[in-house]
């Protein structure tokens, strides 16, 4: 909310420097977001009166005005606005004036017509937001008076009020808080002659939602523009001026925090009812929209229809217009939760609902009504009724709150003397109703509806005492490693470190995916998405990785090797699983380099290599997936972890094949999590023998390996494939095929092997290959 420092000064003396005020508030938890100055340094701008106008001879959009600047001489001014008439008083910037926006005024010719100054709009003088026309001053200002005297310079604080502090949403409220924090005395606002209360004809049935309701009749008002001071005041804090009656209502709200509403009394029929809405009841509000109400919305109604949504917004048909003569002024207390629900359900927020849902001061209701009535009398010539009609009762004061001084010390962590605690609480308007040496009981002022428990009081003590005065303390506590710790560490060690070592970069894509991406897969959708880009929770990481691929290709990347570790949400329940996704595309080497021998593109075996780099003994089996042209299932033991393969060309706009894999990281890490133990180092040398063979194309590496390994030859330690190439003609036996070369390592744990032993073992394996696969091994 915006606060005018001039306005605050009506209630309290403040330091000259606005920064000092802002600092005081900020350190007490009332954050000042911005400090603006307004109306400062307006020189050589005076009140002038338009005495004649004529059309500009050379420009349709311009007029030529003759104005009286108060010195007796008439000036000719060219003007582009249209919102004035002869006789209006408007600000005139004379040659030499420098406007707040930096414009310097000079005597000049506009389209051939001399202009001796400029008539100004509110925005040009930094006196409002209105840029649509001239600032029309009220009739009572003196021609020739300085604008700077009419609009004294002001500083506006834009303050963030937290939702628990509805009592600060007014100038008086903030001044009261500053008084409590600074110790400066508070000047109470004028309270006129209180009217007599009259139990009224108002029929209050929604007494839970609206415990207290009042109406006062004000007859014979002259609706018109507000006087300059009123308009300047409300516009200085960002409220648009409408007419004097509405402006007064807003002014009182800004001054005391209590919203009021003025009805055109002649448009109301019969008695006023404060009731719950009928289901589906239609209501045309002041914002011009029709709302369909629900039975838990509280409305103010006449005998025929709702004329206001209580505490939220009045009705279009019964609002004050230029022809309004008599007014019914509403001031009430609405239940915060009810207002909040109504405003939320109808998606209708107003300055009034904002305050009611944060809780207004019940003791301010009648005082605000009285203030508004007096202003309507003084400004609009209205005659307030002697009585104010009331229904219901203001809500009871909050229960007294006991506070133990010891607890206060324990929560804050430093001993604060009971005397200091008492002083602080009393400055905030609390009253001690009972007190022992350890505990005191405090009466809460009606405007502090947020103070309900001892900790709320302790916070007030802390705010006023000053957090800077609390010495920080550090104590140790030992905690055991949690499952989440172990899982985090394993993820770092096994997944992140190994994959980055393999040259993959980690990405983080949105867990919320777009309409297009979610159309590909079944996904848990949001009920209330905000944009088409974020409509569902990702069931898989692949769509995110593909987006990263496309973005990087657009940015000119020649190679994309990425992984992501994160949650996926499995439909229909949205079960959360930690997944790891990998995507490879493009060239192996990204930068030209003088050592590189070959330049090839990444392929399926790079994908397998990356996965095997995480866990060496994964199993890959053929699989089928709708989006993959070549698919493999990835198994760890008897556990299916996920899939991988080459994406169908149609699934990506990338040139060349794209390889993806997605595994369940929780299952994967569960498998590799077990601790490693020592295995004795080899003491005796191994002996290697190579076997090369030409085999038919269809024969797989896995089958060859199986034959070499089974039945197990005890001396055979490992088998490595070290060469593979295609052969056009493998001879009569195989036709076109491929040549594979394996290196077999033989070793015994307890002795050096002899050549004869190895030759014998090797011969058995060669024999097996010949017999079972029909291949002819070459040496």
């Amino acid at each position: 909310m915006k606060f005018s420092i001039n306005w605050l000064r009506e209630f309290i003396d403040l330091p000259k420097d606005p920064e000092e005020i802002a600092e005081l508030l900020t350190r007490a938890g009332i954050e000042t977001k911005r400090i603006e100055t307004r109306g400062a340094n307006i020189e050589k701008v005076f009140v002038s009166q338009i005495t004649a106008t004529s059309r500009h001879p050379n420009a349709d959009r311009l007029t030529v005005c003759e104005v009286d600047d108060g010195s007796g001489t008439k000036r000719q001014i060219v003007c582009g606005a249209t919102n004035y008439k002869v006789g209006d008083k408007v600000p005139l910037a004379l040659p030499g004036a420098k406007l707040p926006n930096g414009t310097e005024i000079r005597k000049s010719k506009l389209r051939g017509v001399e202009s001796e100054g400029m008539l100004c709009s509110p925005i040009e003088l930094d006196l409002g937001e209105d840029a649509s026309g001239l600032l029309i001053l009220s009739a009572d200002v003196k021609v020739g008076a300085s604008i700077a005297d009419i609009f004294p310079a002001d500083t506006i604080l834009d303050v963030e009020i937290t939702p628990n502090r509805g009592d600060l949403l007014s100038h008086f409220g903030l001044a009261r808080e500053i008084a409590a924090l600074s110790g400066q005395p508070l000047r109470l606002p004028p309270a006129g002659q209180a009217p007599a209360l009259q139990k009224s004809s108002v029929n209050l049935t929604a007494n839970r939602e609206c415990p207290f309701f009042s109406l006062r009749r004000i007859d014979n008002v002259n609706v018109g523009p507000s006087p300059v001071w009123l308009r300047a005041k409300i516009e200085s804090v960002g409220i648009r001026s409408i007419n004097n009656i509405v402006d007064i209502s807003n002014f009182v709200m800004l001054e005391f925090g209590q919203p009021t509403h003025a009805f055109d009394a002649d448009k109301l029929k019969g008695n006023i009812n404060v009731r719950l809405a009928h289901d589906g009841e239609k209501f045309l509000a002041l914002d011009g929209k029709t709302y369909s109400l629900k039975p838990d919305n509280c409305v103010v109604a006449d005998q025929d229809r709702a004329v206001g949504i209580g505490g939220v917004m009045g009705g279009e048909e019964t609002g004050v217009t230029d022809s309004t003569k008599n007014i019914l002024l509403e001031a009430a207390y609405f239940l915060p939760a009810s207002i909040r629900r109504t405003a939320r359900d109808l998606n209708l927020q107003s300055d009034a609902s904002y305050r009611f849902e944060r809780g207004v001061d019940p003791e301010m209701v009648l005082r605000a009504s009285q203030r508004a009535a007096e202003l309507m009398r003084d400004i609009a010539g209205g005659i307030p009724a002697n009585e104010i009609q009331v229904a219901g009762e203001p809500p009871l004061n909050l229960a007294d709150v006991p506070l133990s001084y010891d607890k206060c010390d324990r929560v804050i962590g430093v001993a604060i003397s009971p005397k200091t605690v008492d002083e602080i609480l009393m400055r905030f308007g609390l009253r001690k109703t009972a007190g022992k040496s350890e505990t005191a009981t405090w009466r809460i002022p009606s405007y502090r509806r947020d103070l309900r428990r001892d900790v709320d009081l302790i916070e007030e003590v802390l705010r006023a005492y000053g957090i800077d005065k609390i010495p920080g303390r550090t104590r140790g506590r030992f905690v055991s490693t949690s499952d989440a710790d172990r899982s985090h560490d394993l993820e770092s060690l096994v997944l992140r470190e190994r994959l980055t070592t393999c040259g993959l970069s980690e990405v983080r894509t949105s867990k919320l995916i777009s309409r297009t991406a979610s159309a590909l897969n079944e996904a848990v959708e949001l009920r209330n998405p905000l944009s088409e880009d974020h409509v569902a929770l990702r069931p898989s990481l692949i769509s995110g990785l593909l987006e990263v691929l496309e973005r990087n290709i657009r940015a000119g990347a020649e190679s994309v090797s990425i992984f992501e570790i994160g949650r996926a949400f499995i439909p229909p329940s949205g079960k959360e699983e930690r997944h790891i996704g990998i995507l490879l595309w493009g060239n192996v080497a990204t930068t030209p380099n003088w050592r590189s021998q070959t330049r090839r593109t990444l392929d399926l075996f790079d994908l397998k290599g990356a996965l095997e780099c995480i866990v060496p003994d994964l199993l890959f089996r053929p699989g089928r997936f709708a989006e993959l042209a070549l698919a493999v299932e990835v198994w760890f033991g008897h556990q299916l972890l996920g899939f991988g393969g080459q994406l169908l060309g149609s699934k990506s706009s990338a040139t060349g094949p794209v390889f993806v894999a997605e595994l369940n990281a929780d299952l994967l890490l569960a498998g590799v999590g077990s601790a490693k133990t020592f295995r004795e180092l080899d003491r005796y040398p191994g002996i290697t023998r190579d076997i090369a063979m030409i085999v038919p194309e269809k024969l797989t590496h896995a089958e060859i390996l199986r034959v070499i390994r089974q039945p197990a030859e005890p001396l055979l330690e490992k088998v490595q494939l070290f060469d593979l190439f295609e052969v056009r003609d493998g001879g009569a036996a195989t036709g076109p095929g491929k040549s594979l070369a394996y290196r077999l390592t033989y070793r015994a744990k307890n002795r050096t092997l002899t050549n004869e032993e190895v030759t014998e073992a090797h011969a058995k394996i060669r024999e097996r290959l010949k017999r079972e696969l029909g291949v002819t091994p070459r040496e």
Partner: protein
Amino acid sequence: MHSLEQLRNDALREIESARDEKSLEAVRVKYLGKNGSISAWGERMKTLAKDERPVVGKLLSDARNTVTAAIEQRGAKIRAEEEFDALAKIDISLPGTPHEIGSLHPLHQMHDRAIQIFRRMGFALAEGPDIETEWYCFDALNTPADHPARNEQDTFYLPDGRLLRTHTSTVQIRTMESAPPPIRVIASGAAYRRDELDATHSPQFHQIEGLYVDKNVSVADLKGELEFFMRELFGAETEVQFRPHYFPFTEPSLEIHVRSKALKSGEQWIEVAGCGIVHPAVFEAVNQARGDDAYDPEKWSGYAFGLGMDRLAMILFEIPDIRLFSQNDLRFLRQFA
């Protein structure tokens, strides 16, 4: 015939002047070879008187040893020189063999840095789901329906009424539900708000939540420990300021602002975290869910905090736009390799 001493001195001089292995070998043959001049003294021994033999024999073996050692030494030097010469031709300014090493995402690096500091401070990790119920996200956190802080407008809902957590404070409740006090945990994860994506807002963002429940945990503990964290993270010179604020689930509630000349923001205070003393109503809600009185607010107290990791990473890495995190341009990611 030259004296042995003379021969030895000649040999050493010639060894010293040998420039390559071939000339060194020639020297060796000349003196120590079968017909070498030092070897010749061996034959001559036989002609000597018996009592002279041991004396001459010792002289002879000394000369042989000295010359042999000199040849070896000279040989090693010559071979080293040859190796030096051979390798001196290599252009050492050529670039090293490149290894493609990947990079970790800056957000992960930020999380990791924070987690490391918290672990040194004795916090263990905790976890909770992204999809939550209103109970964990609001009710248990003292934010009942119709509370102004319960901003349903900003919350993503699933069709079944569940929601995406708007803060990681949900993990506070889950942790306390599953274990009695004392508690000292942090939880790192995603949270969601119904914000349009722009330079400073993202519908999905990342937080680290912390909770410490123990006997007599006070504002002083909160202040001392989080000040320590901020100085570890931003540098020892960092100024830390605590300002009162409002959160429904803490009372008192505070915001942490830091200022450091080492940061790009310089003189400006920047908000980095929200924190406070756990509200007794939160303990009461946990007790209700547990069905016991483990978190008696008169016996236990605690502090809680939440750090916005995207914001911290933006501050520390001087990243101007939050969207860079989710765009994953490799040129961006590589800057943090």
